[in-house]
Structures are given as structure tokens and as C-alpha cells.
């Protein structure tokens, strides 16, 4: 990490190239250094300004460091500030020169002006030079006892900075107890708040090693301390209030009376002008009342108006953050906003990200009473100029239809879309009509009549075309022209670029043949011939399969390709309800915006083994979590998650029609949590692959429509240790020692490749199969991962280097192991895990 590097941004011609100007500055500064002539400060100020502006542009001006320090003897506060800024930027990389600054900073720390004392102290603490920490202890100690609150406030944060530089110095100087004293006594609320943030961070970092720190951390959540903060709530600045409220949300009140007291005290915070305060208060309310069903409902009612105001009055960015939270709430209790649906009507000039969330809200709040209005509104967006918006709106209409409200009217609307003769509308609608028919086969008559009129020439998008072809095949007996349309499509086989469409075409022709053999025979022959000659492996394989099936026995083919179908009752939901509960626990955090619990993305992974390097090819091996603790923790979290994945099947999707059932499980969270914890432990994760959530595809997909040839689902004989952990350096060493025992090339599901945009997706997926990622790197289209797995019994380890090309979907595997006998079995297991990536 060089100081603001030029290499990233080549300076434009208009910018000074640096060198000459910097040395000019150097001489000018040197001349001024000793001068005490009047007006010197003004000249200095101009020069300092220049230096800092170069620094801001990204030119390295560290060479004038000593001159800057020499010029720093001044009483002008702006000059001082600029000097502090400069020093703060370069000291870290010039520790020797930084020593020069200590002198004048120490002097300034004793200045009479509290502002200068504060600024000097802040700058001293921000230097970030580890070998200067000894000079910090004195000024910090004085700062904490300073008569001026500004200095104390700076010192309180300074202690935290010192702690990060050198924890031992900070603890040896006994700063935490001092902070605690200040926190509980100081008159100035900002000092109190700063002490709180510093102590929270210090004690939670220390808690793992020191029992005392753990006790102190508990102390922060004790009744007297929390009440102390609550009572001073109104003195705090709005930002400090957020921090205090976050603390309060972790506090567990003894009885309901206490809960009511706290809520009464905090209720006026809901009227605060700062949205962050409002949201933090809401978090307190929601968490405290989890165990009190009735009150919890009342809380929903109470927080409704402030939330809706936040959505409609703030900037789009604020609306976005608030809407993400609303979406979470509405998933738990759809009824709360069902009468306020109009708040989620989209404005024409809102950014797309806000509109998208509003559409999600509209689909979530739709119920018997408002569906008509909502769908009417959505239909207006469909006619909108904004094409992405039109598409999203159609999808929203479709989602509402699949929620079973007033399907009748919706199907009519959808069919009207088809008559609008706009390509993107038609395309999007066709996909939806297909899904609708899978759920409500009784509508096939009406739909087919309209769909039959669409010329396949007007449909170009692969997904839409595939949907149309699916319908042509599925309803071949109801559509007069079906065989002939399909025949036309088969004739243009070579012009069809999408493998998905060709796959569907094969299946559709097959189905059509099974119903109307005489008319389709020619088309089928052509399709099979073209399919067998196809360069795409999947298309080729499927054509061959059909060909052999037909050759073997037509009735068997019929049973396989065209069995009687049951309507799909629920489509797979992307998120389990347990997952949503987990996110709810992290209300008012990034988890809500990303719609993922934080363990799936927070910094442990970033700092740890998943450090993704910017440049291609450079591979970073994580060094920090050398003990397996973090890894094990993560694995554990993931284990639960997988189990939840299966339980999702029984109880998910309830939210659509039964709101109260939805939030029920969490009310007595303490008991169920305990129980389910036990449940997790009972089911050990020795066979991870079987726990993978089964996909909710229709029966068609037995043949792997849209999926690569289905991997065998039988669990391989090899069992892996779910809690395997290895030190990255040990991995490196082992990798160097072992010979390659297996080198293979395979392919990855294109859907999986799409998921690679999130660098954590694949490691997380593989972890679900007890294969841990040690390091990863690369940039599209080439990604490189190192995985590690361990056999359940015995300590045999498997090391894998996996190079994925996301554009060609090719994967190269190199497996090294100290147990050669099972390397083949492991390779199979690895590939089967990999092939499931993205398809679930």
C-alpha cells in the first residue's frame, strides 16, 4: 500500500506532472521555515494549500515532509490544520520523519487553546506509527482529564486509536477503566458517547482473551448502565443516540413492565428528524416485544407512519435503505402495510433501484382486498416508456397471480399485455403465462387461444422463446398449428443461438409427436438429426436420448417425456424463512440491504481466507485466522443453514396467505432456539450432499431441462469431515510437498457461473459440501480457487486447485491428496458438489 499511488490513475496532461513543482515547493518552504517576517503566514498558507492539493490529486509529496514540519511552528490554526492533515497522510510510511512531528504535536497538546489541544491530540493519535505510541500515553492521559469537553471527546476516541496501534500500551496505561469512569460521570454527552464506542470496541476485542474484559462488556449491558444512558438520551447528538439505541437493543429487560418503561421513554425518538435514529428505535421496539405477541402487533402499527414518512420524504438513497427494511417487515407481517399500498406506487422520476423495491413491496402487500388496485397500477407501468420497469412490473403481476389472489382478473390482464405487441412485454408475459399454466392448468384454454396467435417471429428473447415452445409442446393437442409452427422452428435450427431454446424445441417436438404423430413425424426427424449433430453437448445428448428411447419403445418414451403432470403448488422460494428470521435479528444493518445474514458476507471472510485480489493471477493466501476457530465457526453457521434449507420445504411460503403463522415461531425464541440448537447437534453433517435443498422443478426437469445432465444424487461412499480446518501456511506447505494425484477437466453449470459474480458464492456453496476454500483470486473470466477437505475418519486431506473459466464454463481441477486410493472418489464428490452450484 503505497501512499496515494499515481499508478492507478495516470495524471491527465493538464495536471502537473509533480516532480518539478514539488522540488520548487521544497525550496520555497525551506526559505520560509525560519522567517518571522509579517505576512509569512499568508505565503505559507498558499504553499501548504498547494502541497495538500497535490496530495489530494494523488501526487506523492512526501519528499517535502521535513520542510513541512519545519514550517509548522505557527500560531495560525488553519496552517496547523493543514499541517496535521499532511502529517497524518504520510507519517505512516515515513516513521522516521514522523518522529520529527512528535515534538510540535506534543507542544500543541499543551496549548492554551482547547481547540488546538484537541486537534493536536487527534492528529497525534491518527499518525498510526507503532513505534511512537510511547509519546501518546502522556497527552492522552492529560486529554482525558482536560477541563474542556472538546479535548476529552477527542481523547476518548484517541484511546481507541491507540488500542488499535498497540493494545498492550493502551491496557498497561489503564485507559479502559479511566474511560469507564468518564463514561459514567462526564457532563458532556458527546464525551460519554465517545467513551461508549471506544469501550465497546476494546472490550469486545479483548473479551476472547481476558475474562475481565468479558465481564466489563457484560457490564455495559447491565441494567444500571443501560438506564443511565436511557436517562441521558436527549442530551446525546443524533448520531450518539444511534449508538446508544444499538446498545439498548441488546439489553434484555427482566419483565414486561420494564419493556413498557423503556418503550415509553423512547417513543418520542420515532418523531426524530434523523432517519437513522428512527430506525434504531424501531429495532429496539421490535426486539423487545418479540415475546409479547399482542404488543408486537401494536408496535407494527405504531412504527408504520414514521417508516412511511421516511420512505416518501427522504432522498432516493434514504428511501432505498428504508424500503429494504420495510420489505423485511412486510415479509414477516404482510398485513401491516396492506392498506397503505398506495405509498409504494412508483413515481416516474425515481431511480430504478427504488422502483424495484417498491414493486417488491407491492407484490408483498397484495391481498384479497387490494389486488385489483395494485394490479391496475402495475399495468400502467407496463405501458411505460421505461423498458426495465415494464419488465419488472409484468413480473410483479405474475408473482401476485402466483399468490392466488383474484387470478381471474390477472390472467385477463396478462393476456392483454400480449396484445400490446411490444416485444419486451410479449417476451416477459410469455414466461409468466408458462409459470401460471404450470400452477393453474385450468386456465390453459383461455391462454392457449391468445398464445396461439403470437407469431414466433416476434419473439426473439431466448427465455420467452423457450416458454412459447414449451407451451406449443405441452398443449399440442389444443393448438391447431402447433406441429407446423414447430416444424418452422426446426427448419431454422441453425439460426437458433440459444442452447436453451434448442433443448426446449427438442422436447416440444417430442411431446407433439407423442400426441400428433402423423403431423409431427417430419419435424421430429429433422429435429433429432439436427440435435445429434449439434455442437452443444447437452443438446446432442438429449437428442440421442430421445432417439434411443423412441427406438427402444415408444410407450416408455411417452411415460418419460410426457407423463401426466400435477400442478405445481408452490414455486421454490429463494430464501428460507429461518434465513429471514436471522436477517430480522440483524435489523438495521447491512444484512437487510443485501438480504443475507451477516455471517455470509462480513469482514471475517474478507480479511481471512477469501481475500479477493484485484489483479488477475495474484493469489492471496489468507494469513490471519491461523487457528481454526473462525473457520469452524463459519462451518457451524453453514451447517445450520443447510439444515434450515431442508426445513424450509415444510414451512416456507406460508407468508403469502397466512401472516400470523409467519411470525409465530419466533415469539418464544428462547425456547425454540434452544430446542433447535439441540436438533442441529443431533443431526451430524456427515452426508452433506444429501442435505442439499432439493430443487422445485417441474417433472419435465427430470430430463434436466435447463440443467446439465443431472449428476447422480446417490451419496458417494466417501465421507468428509464437516469441520475440517487447516492453517493457510500449512496448506501451502502441503501443496508444495504432494504430487498431483489427479488432474481433470470438467464443466460448470452456466447458472452457477452467473452466481460467480459474487466471489463468496462458490466458496460458500462448497462449504455446504464440507469443502472449504483456502484462497481465491482472479477476475472474470478466469477464477482460481484453492479448496481443502478432510476425510471424516482418519486425517487424510484433499487439496484442490480449481480454475474456472466463466465464459466457457470449463473447470480444470488438480487434486492432491495423501490418500491416493480415494482420490477418484473425492474427485467425483467434488464434481457433484460443483455441478449443483447455481442450480439450487
Amino acid at each position, binding site marked *: 500500500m503505497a501512499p496515494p499511488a499515481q499508478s492507478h490513475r495516470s495524471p491527465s496532461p493538464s495536471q502537473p506532472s509533480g516532480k518539478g513543482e514539488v522540488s520548487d515547493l521544497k525550496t520555497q518552504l525551506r526559505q520560509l521555515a525560519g522567517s518571522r517576517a509579517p505576512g509569512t503566514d499568508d505565503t505559507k498558507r498558499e504553499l501548504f494549500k498547494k502541497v495538500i492539493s497535490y496530495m489530494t490529486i494523488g501526487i506523492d509529496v512526501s519528499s517535502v515532509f521535513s520542510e513541512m514540519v519545519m514550517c509548522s511552528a505557527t500560531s495560525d490554526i*488553519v496552517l496547523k490544520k493543514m499541517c496535521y492533515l499532511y502529517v497524518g497522510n504520510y507519517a505512516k510510511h515515513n516513521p522516521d520523519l514522523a518522529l520529527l512531528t512528535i515534538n510540535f504535536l506534543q507542544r500543541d497538546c499543551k496549548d492554551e487553546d482547547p481547540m488546538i489541544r484537541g486537534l493536536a491530540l487527534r492528529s497525534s493519535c491518527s499518525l498510526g506509527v507503532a513505534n511512537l505510541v510511547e509519546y501518546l500515553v502522556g497527552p492522552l492521559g492529560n486529554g482525558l482529564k482536560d477541563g474542556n469537553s472538546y479535548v476529552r471527546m477527542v481523547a476518548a476516541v484517541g484511546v481507541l486509536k491507540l488500542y488499535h496501534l498497540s493494545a498492550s500500551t493502551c491496557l498497561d496505561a489503564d485507559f479502559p477503566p479511566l474511560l469507564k469512569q468518564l463514561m459514567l460521570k462526564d457532563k458532556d454527552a458527546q464525551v460519554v458517547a465517545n467513551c461508549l464506542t471506544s469501550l465497546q470496541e476494546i472490550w469486545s476485542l479483548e473479551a476472547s482473551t481476558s475474562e475481565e474484559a468479558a465481564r466489563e462488556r457484560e457490564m455495559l449491558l447491565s441494567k444500571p448502565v443501560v438506564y443511565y444512558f436511557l436517562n441521558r438520551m436527549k442530551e446525546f447528538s443524533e448520531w450518539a443516540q444511534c449508538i446508544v439505541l444499538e446498545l439498548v437493543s441488546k439489553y434484555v429487560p427482566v419483565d414486561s413492565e420494564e419493556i413498557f418503561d423503556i418503550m415509553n421513554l423512547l417513543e418520542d425518538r420515532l418523531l*426524530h428528524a434523523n432517519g437513522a435514529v428512527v430506525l434504531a428505535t424501531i429495532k429496539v421496539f421490535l426486539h423487545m416485544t418479540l415475546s409479547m405477541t399482542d404488543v408486537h402487533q401494536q408496535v407494527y402499527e405504531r412504527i408504520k407512519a414514521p417508516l412511511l414518512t421516511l420512505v416518501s420524504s427522504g432522498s432516493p*438513497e434514504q428511501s432505498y435503505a428504508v424500503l429494504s427494511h420495510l420489505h423485511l417487515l412486510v415479509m414477516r407481517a404482510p398485513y401491516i402495510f396492506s392498506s397503505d399500498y398506495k405509498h409504494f406506487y412508483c413515481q416516474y422520476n425515481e431511480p430504478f433501484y427504488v422502483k424495484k423495491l417498491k414493486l417488491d413491496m407491492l407484490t408483498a402487500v397484495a391481498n384479497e382486498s387490494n389486488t385489483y388496485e395494485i394490479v391496475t397500477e402495475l399495468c400502467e407501468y407496463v405501458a411505460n416508456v421505461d423498458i426495465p420497469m415494464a419488465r419488472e412490473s409484468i413480473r410483479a403481476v405474475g408473482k401476485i397471480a402466483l399468490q392466488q389472489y383474484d387470478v381471474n382478473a390477472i390472467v385477463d390482464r396478462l393476456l392483454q399485455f400480449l396484445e400490446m405487441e411490444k416485444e419486451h412485454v410479449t417476451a416477459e408475459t410469455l414466461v409468466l403465462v408458462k409459470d401460471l399454466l404450470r400452477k393453474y392448468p385450468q386456465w390453459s384454454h383461455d391462454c392457449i387461444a391468445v398464445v396461439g396467435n403470437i407469431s414466433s417471429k416476434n419473439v426473439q428473447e431466448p427465455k420467452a422463446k423457450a416458454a412459447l415452445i414449451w407451451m406449443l409442446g405441452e398443449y399440442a393437442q389444443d393448438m391447431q398449428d402447433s406441429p407446423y409452427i414447430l416444424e418452422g422452428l426446426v427448419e431454422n435450427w441453425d439460426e437458433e443461438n440459444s442452447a436453451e431454446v434448442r433443448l426446449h424445441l427438442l422436447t416440444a417436438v417430442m411431446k407433439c409427436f407423442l400426441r400428433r404423430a402423423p403431423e409431427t413425424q417430419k419435424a421430429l426427424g429433422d429435429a433429432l438429426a439436427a440435435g445429434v449433430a449439434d455442437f452443444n453437448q447437452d443438446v446432442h445428448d438429449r437428442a440421442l436420448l430421445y432417439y434411443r428411447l423412441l427406438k427402444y419403445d415408444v410407450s416408455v418414451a411417452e411415460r418419460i417425456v410426457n407423463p401426466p403432470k400435477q400442478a405445481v403448488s408452490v414455486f421454490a422460494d429463494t430464501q428460507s424463512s429461518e434465513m429471514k428470521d436471522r436477517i430480522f435479528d440483524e435489523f438495521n444493518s447491512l444484512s437487510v440491504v443485501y438480504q443475507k445474514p451477516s455471517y455470509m458476507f462480513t469482514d471475517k471472510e474478507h480479511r481471512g481466507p477469501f481475500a479477493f485480489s484485484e489483479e488477475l493471477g495474484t493469489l492471496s493466501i489468507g494469513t490471519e485466522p491461523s487457528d481454526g476457530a473462525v473457520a469452524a465457526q463459519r462451518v457451524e453457521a453453514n451447517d445450520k443453514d443447510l439444515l434450515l434449507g431442508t426445513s424450509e420445504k415444510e414451512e416456507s411460503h406460508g407468508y403469502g396467505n397466512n401472516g400470523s403463522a409467519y411470525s409465530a415461531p419466533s415469539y418464544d425464541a428462547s425456547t425454540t432456539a434452544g430446542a433447535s440448537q439441540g436438533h442441529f447437534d443431533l443431526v451430524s453433517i456427515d452426508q452433506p450432499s444429501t442435505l442439499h435443498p432439493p430443487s422445485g422443478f417441474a417433472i419435465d426437469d427430470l430430463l434436466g431441462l435447463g440443467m446439465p445432465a443431472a449428476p447422480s444424487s446417490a451419496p458417494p461412499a466417501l465421507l468428509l469431515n464437516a469441520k475440517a480446518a487447516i492453517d493457510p501456511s500449512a496448506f501451502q506447505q502441503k501443496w508444495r510437498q504432494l504430487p498431483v494425484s489427479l488432474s481433470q477437466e470438467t464443466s460448470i453449470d452456466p447458472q452457477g457461473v452467473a452466481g460467480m459474480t459474487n466471489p463468496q458464492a462458490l466458496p460458500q456453496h462448497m462449504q455446504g459440501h464440507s469443502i472449504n476454500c483456502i484462497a481465491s483470486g482472479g477476475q472474470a473470466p478466469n477464477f482460481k480457487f484453492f479448496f481443502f477437505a478432510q476425510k471424516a475418519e482418519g486425517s487424510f486431506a484433499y487439496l484442490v486447485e480449481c480454475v474456472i473459466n466463466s465464459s466457457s464454463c470449463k473447470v480444470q481441477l488438480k487434486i492432491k491428496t495423501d490418500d491416493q486410493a480415494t482420490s477418484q472418489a473425492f474427485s467425483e464428490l467434488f464434481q457433484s458438489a460443483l455441478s449443483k452450484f447455481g442450480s439450487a
Partner: protein
Amino acid sequence: MLQCIFLLSDSGEVLLEKQLTGHRVDRAICDWFWNQILTQGDSLKLVPVISSPTHYLFQVVREGITFLACTQIEMPPLMAIEFLCRVADVLSNYLDGLNEDLIKDNFVIVYELLDEMIDNGFPLTTEPNILREMIAPPNIVSKVLSVVTGNTSNVSNTLPGATASCVPWRKTDLKHATNEVYVDLVEEMDATINRDGNLVKCEIYGEVQVNSNLSGLPDLTLSFANPSVFNDVRFHPCVRLRPWELNQILSFVPPDGQFKLMSYRVKKLKSTPIYVKPQFTSDSGTCRISVLVGIRNDPGKSIDNITVEFRLPPCVTSSDLSPNYGSVNVLADKTCSWTIGRMPKDKAPSMSGTLVLETGMERLHVFPTFQVAFRIMGVALSGLKIDKLDLKNPLSRPHKGFRALTRGGEFQVRS
């Protein structure tokens, strides 16, 4: 908490970088971020909270300047966004506007401000009144002063008195030659009228803005004749909430100068002051358009600053629009803006014309949304009325003034 704040220009150049913690954030993150914007096409389209391979980024765009903040740990997203919005507000307030040049010219002030607004990633104070006392804004007055007195420092030598006082938004010893306080009701009407001409949604977002130039520590009470109209209210921290809960009275010690005392929403209004009726009839490749504007519900005061703006669908190749009142401008991006100005007494303004569609297109089937702006002085359309404003501890009788104003906010008519 936040680790770093960057200010980027509209071409992705780093205008300013403020590291907040010991973990230095490399500038390369800005390049990554800008690539994201380029792939999205427009900075306004990029989601405000995104995750890069190394950091979580928050971004807020104001006047072409992107405020970008980075963090690596979990934190309340709204807090980060609110903070960035405040930074943007404070800067534009200080620099009297916001653009690349202003920031480049005043980067020292921006650094100073950020220094006081956030420390170690935790926001400290964003209250403009307090900041103003610590760092003087670069206005003409201070420039003149510096010439006269020879003191060029733009920093006051004393710490803000308010930090020690119990009223953090106000200095203790303020003196004004004129004692005056003005209260403005500023309302914005948000309305959506659908294709059939029905009013789908109509509500008022209002603010009570106060400009106070009072000496000493004045204690004000403001009461409304009909506080029951409010659906939801939010207050400046100076408002005491107990009197509001009991009697719906606003009791407060005001900050000095202009500030927003409260904001409120009034839902479910039944009608709008004006109507806009667009009509399209397509016939073999051309489309007739006519737009009528008139008074639906007379507010009793004249309606002025009326403009109607809409964007022609991309399939329109040329247009010929003529109004019977006001003027029409068609911009290169097919935005048509029809400026009417004050509503005429004698006739209803109308605009008509023809649109020529792309060859091969028979009729128009995407229709624009019309955005309507207007202003009515002297009326708060929500019906809100101020009853009285009392001063508890007056040194002398202050001059009091009240005004009301309603503007069109998100007033949209679909066609």
C-alpha cells in the same frame, strides 16, 4: 463504522479523500467503483449500497458529486446514508452550492468540516449552526473582514459556546439589533393521476420553516388552529415533545437563523388545484396529441409558475407542438417542457400538435408521464393554519411574520 470518505467528480476523478481510521483504504476502490458505474451507464442507476470485493460502499450523488464511503464491518446502512446526505447538505450550505470547482477551490474547508463531523468513523456533529461556529464559511463577509482586519483565519479562535450549554443548537449570548422571527409553511403536493383521469394518490408533504433572529435565549410556542390534519410529524431536536403530545403545541428554543422546525405529511386529499388532461389519438403513423390544463378546485389565490413536462417516447421521430398560451420547448433528449406561467383568467391553456412515429409503426402504444409544477403563494393546501406564536421571555417585542406557500411536488399525470 466508516473507514474512508471519497468525493468523486462526475468523471470519476477523486476530488478529495478523507481517511478515518488506521485501516487505510486504497484509492483503487474508487477505480473499481467507477467501473461499476460505467457498466451501469449512469451513477444514478447504481444502488446506494453495494459490496466491492474488499469493502462495502455507500454512495450518495448530489449535483454530479458522488459521496462515497467505505466500511468493512456491519453497520446501520441508513446511518451511513443519512450521514453522507448531511455532509452533502452541509457542504452545499457552506460553499453556497455544490460542484467540482467549488470543492477544489475550498478543499481545505471541506477537510476541516469533515474533521469535525466525523472522528474514527463515528459521526460527531452535523448541526450546521455548531459547525459554523467552529469553521467560518468562505462567504463574502468573512473575506471583507479579513481584508479589513488583516486576519485571514477562517476559524474562530474560541470553541463554540453551545457545546457546553444545555441547548446544543444555540449560542448562549446571541445579540441581534432587530428582533424578528418568521414562520413559513412550505407545502408540496404529491399527486398521481392515472390513465383514466382518476386521482390515485394525493398527499401533502409540508415543512414549517422558521427564520429566527432573536437575542438571548428565547422560548417560543407555536400552535396550530387545526393540528388534527397531520398524519405524521417529525421535529427538529429543539422541539419539546411533551407539550406536543399533550396539547399539540410546539414549544422550543430556536437555533439562530434559518432552520426546519418540523416536517409533516397530510394524506388522502380529495382533489388537486389544477387538472391536466392529455389525449393521444393515433392514425396510420402519426399521432395527435392534445393537452388541456385548467383549474379544478380554485384555491382562492392565483396559480403561477405552471410548467408541464413530459418525455416523448423513443419511437417518435419528430413532433410539432403548439400551445395557445405560454411556450413549448423540445430538447434533444425529447423532453418537452411547456411553460405556462400564471394561469390565465379568461381561457384554459391548451397545447396540441402531431407526433410522427417511426416508419412501420401504426399507432403509439407507449405513453409518456406528464410532470406538472406549479406554485400558489399564500395558501397551504393541506388546510393547515397557524394559530399563534408566543414568546415567553422577550427582551423586547419581536416582529413576527407568517407566510404560506404550496408547490407541486411529485405531481404526475399518466397518459
